[in-house]
C-alpha cells in the first residue's frame, strides 16, 4: 500500500510535467494545425542554455529564467523562419520540417556539448518526506506541482481574461475574419509558438532532473508520453491535455514501478494504440468532426 501511494504521488508529479508538455502541443495544434514534433528537442536546447547559464553564474534560478526566455525566443524564431513557410502546405510537409528541426537540434547540441549525459541537479531535495509514517512526497514534487499549477492558471487567465488571449483564440478559430477585424494573425501565431516553447522549456526544466541527465535525446520519451497525453485528451482541448497528462503519468508510474522501468515505452505504445483504436478523437474533444 505504501508503495502504491508512493507511485501515485510520483505518477501525479510526472503527469503534471506531461500535462504541461501536452499543453504546449495543444497550443500549437489549435493555432496552426501542426503537431510540433520538434517540441522535445527545443525543450532540450533551452535546458542546455540553462545548464550553461547556471554554470557561468553559479545560480540555478538565473539558469531557470534563461531557459524560459530562451524558449520564448526559440519558439518565435522557429515559427517565423521555418514553420510559416509550411503552414499552408499539406500536413505531411510540416511534420517532415519539424523532424528536420529535430535532427538539426540533436546534431548542433551534440556538437556543442558532446553526447554524454551531463549532470542536471534538481533545485530541491528529491528525497520523499514522511507523512504519517509513510514516505510520500518530496520537496521537488511540491515544486513541480506548484510550478505547473501556476503555469496553468496564468495560461487560463491569459486566454480567458485578456484582450491578447481573445485575439489569439480568434486568430486560431477564424483567421480570415480576424484579419478583417484588424487582428494581427501572423503575430498571434508567432506569439502562440513562443508561448508553447516557453511552456515546453518549463516542462523540460522540471523533468530532466528526474531522469538520467542532460542529453540531446533526453526528451524523446517525454515527448511521446506527452503526445499520448495530448491524444488522450483530444489534441484540441487544454483541459483534456491536463487530464491526459495526469492519466499517462499515473499509468507509466504504476507500470514502471511494478513491471520495471524498461517497460514504460511499451506502456506508452499500448496506451496510445488503445486510445486511437477505441476513441481516436480523444476523451475530451468538444465538437465531433466528421471525416468525409
Amino acid at each position, binding site marked *: 500500500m505504501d508503495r502504491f501511494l508512493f507511485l501515485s504521488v510520483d505518477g501525479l508529479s510526472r503527469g503534471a510535467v506531461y500535462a504541461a508538455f501536452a499543453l504546449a502541443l495543444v497550443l500549437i495544434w489549435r493555432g496552426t494545425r501542426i503537431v510540433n514534433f520538434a517540441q522535445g528537442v527545443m525543450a532540450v536546447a533551452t535546458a542546455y542554455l540553462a545548464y550553461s547559464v547556471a554554470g557561468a553564474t553559479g545560480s540555478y534560478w538565473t539558469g531557470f529564467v534563461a531557459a524560459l526566455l530562451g524558449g520564448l525566443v526559440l519558439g518565435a524564431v522557429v515559427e517565423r523562419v521555418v514553420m510559416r513557410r509550411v503552414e499552408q502546405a499539406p500536413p505531411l510537409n510540416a511534420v*517532415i520540417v519539424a523532424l528536420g528541426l529535430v535532427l538539426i537540434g540533436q546534431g548542433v547540441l551534440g556538437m556543442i556539448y558532446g553526447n554524454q549525459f551531463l549532470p542536471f541537479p534538481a533545485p530541491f531535495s528529491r528525497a520523499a518526506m514522511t507523512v504519517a509514517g509513510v514516505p510520500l512526497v518530496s520537496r521537488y514534487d511540491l515544486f513541480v506541482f506548484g510550478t505547473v499549477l501556476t503555469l496553468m492558471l496564468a495560461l487560463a487567465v491569459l486566454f480567458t481574461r485578456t484582450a491578447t488571449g481573445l485575439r489569439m483564440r480568434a486568430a486560431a478559430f477564424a483567421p480570415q475574419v480576424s484579419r478583417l477585424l484588424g487582428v494581427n494573425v501572423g503575430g498571434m501565431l508567432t506569439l502562440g509558438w513562443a508561448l508553447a516553447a516557453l511552456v515546453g522549456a518549463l516542462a523540460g526544466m522540471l523533468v530532466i532532473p528526474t531522469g538520467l541527465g542532460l542529453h540531446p535525446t533526453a526528451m524523446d520519451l517525454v515527448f511521446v508520453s506527452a503526445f499520448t497525453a495530448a*491524444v488522450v485528451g483530444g489534441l484540441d482541448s487544454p483541459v483534456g491535455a491536463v487530464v491526459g497528462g495526469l492519466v499517462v503519468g499515473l499509468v507509466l508510474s504504476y507500470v514502471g514501478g511494478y513491471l520495471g522501468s524498461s517497460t514504460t515505452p511499451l506502456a506508452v505504445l499500448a496506451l496510445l494504440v488503445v486510445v486511437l483504436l477505441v476513441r481516436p478523437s480523444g476523451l475530451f474533444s468538444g465538437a465531433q468532426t466528421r471525416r468525409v
Partner: protein
Amino acid sequence: MRHWTLLRHLGATALAAAVLLGVTSVLDPFRDYQLATAAAYLCAAAGLTVLTGLNGQLSLGHGALMAVGAYTVALVQNGFGAHDVGTQWTVPVSLAAGVGAAAASGAVIGVAAARLRGPYLAGLTLVVAVAVPALTTVFGGVFHGDQGLSVYLPPTPAALGEDFPIERWQAWLALCAALLTLLLLANLIRSRFGRTLRAVRDDEVAARLAGIPVARTQVLAFVVSAACAGLGGGMFAVLAQSVSPGAFALTLSLNLLLAVVVGGLGSLAGAVWGSLLLVLLPYLTDTLTSSLALSPALTQRLAGNLPLAVFGLLLVIVMIAAPGGIQGLLNRAGRWARGRRHNRPVRRVDPSAHDAESPPPVATHT
C-alpha cells in the same frame, strides 16, 4: 503492354547488375562495404517511398521494422550456426524469415494506421520507433539487451578463391537484395495496385466511390513497405555481423525519411539518391573534419553530429524550397535540356523564361 514494362524493368535490372558487378570488382573492400551499406539502406528507403510518396502514409517506425528484420535474421542465422549448417543458403532463408517477420509486424501497425491520418499516424509510428528498441531489454534473455547479438555468417564461397574480400561478397548480397526490391517495386508501381495506391493518396473519397477498398489498400501498402524494411534491416545484420538496439534508434527512422524526401518522394530513383547520400555525407564530413586538424575532443564531438545537423538542414531546405527532391530537380533539368534542344535550331530561348510545366515560349524576336 504490361509485359513490355516487365521486360524493360528486367533489362534495366540486368544492366544495373552487370555494371555493379564490374564496379564492385574494381573498388577496394572499404568502398565495397560502403556500397553494401547504401544498398541495405536502399531496400528500406524504396519501401518507405512507396508508402509515404505513393500512398501518402508517413511512417516514422521503419527503423523499428528494420530492427525486427535484423533481429529475426540474427536469431535464425545463429540457429543455423548452432546446428552447424554452414551452406550459403542459410542467408537467403534467414533474410526471408526477416522479411516475413517485418511484414507481419507491418500488418499489425498497418491495421492500426489505416484509421489514422497525418500527425496521428506520424505520432503512433514515432512511439513504435521509440518503444520497439525497449523490447530488447524487456526480453533480455532472447535479445541480450543493449549488448545485442552477434550474427553467425557462413564464410565466403570457396569457389571465389582464397583471398576474395568478404566485403565484396557482402556487397554482392546487399546489391542483389536491393536490385530485387527495386525490380519488384517498380513493377508494383506500374501495376493496377500501384494506381490504386496513388488514387487513395490523392483522394480517398473518390477512390472509395470508384470501388477501391481504401483501408485494405493502406494496410497492404504498409505490409509491402514493412517487408522491404525487414529486408534492409536483415541486410544490416548480415553486413555488421551483429545487431544491437543502438543501431535502430529513432535517428535511423528519421534518416530513412530524409533519404526518401531529399531524394524525391515517391520515386524509386529518388530512393537511390537518398540512400547514397546517407552513406556519402557522413563520410564526406568525416573526411572534412579530419583534414582540418582540429583538437581530438572537437573531432569526436563533430563525428556523427555534424552529419546529423546537415541532414536536418537538408530536410528543412528541401521541404521548403524543392519538395520534389533531387529527382524532381533532375527531372526539371532534363525537361529543360530537352526543350532547349528542340528549340535551338528555330530560335533562341531564354533559359529562365520557361518553367518545367509551362509550354515552351513562342519566338521572342520578330
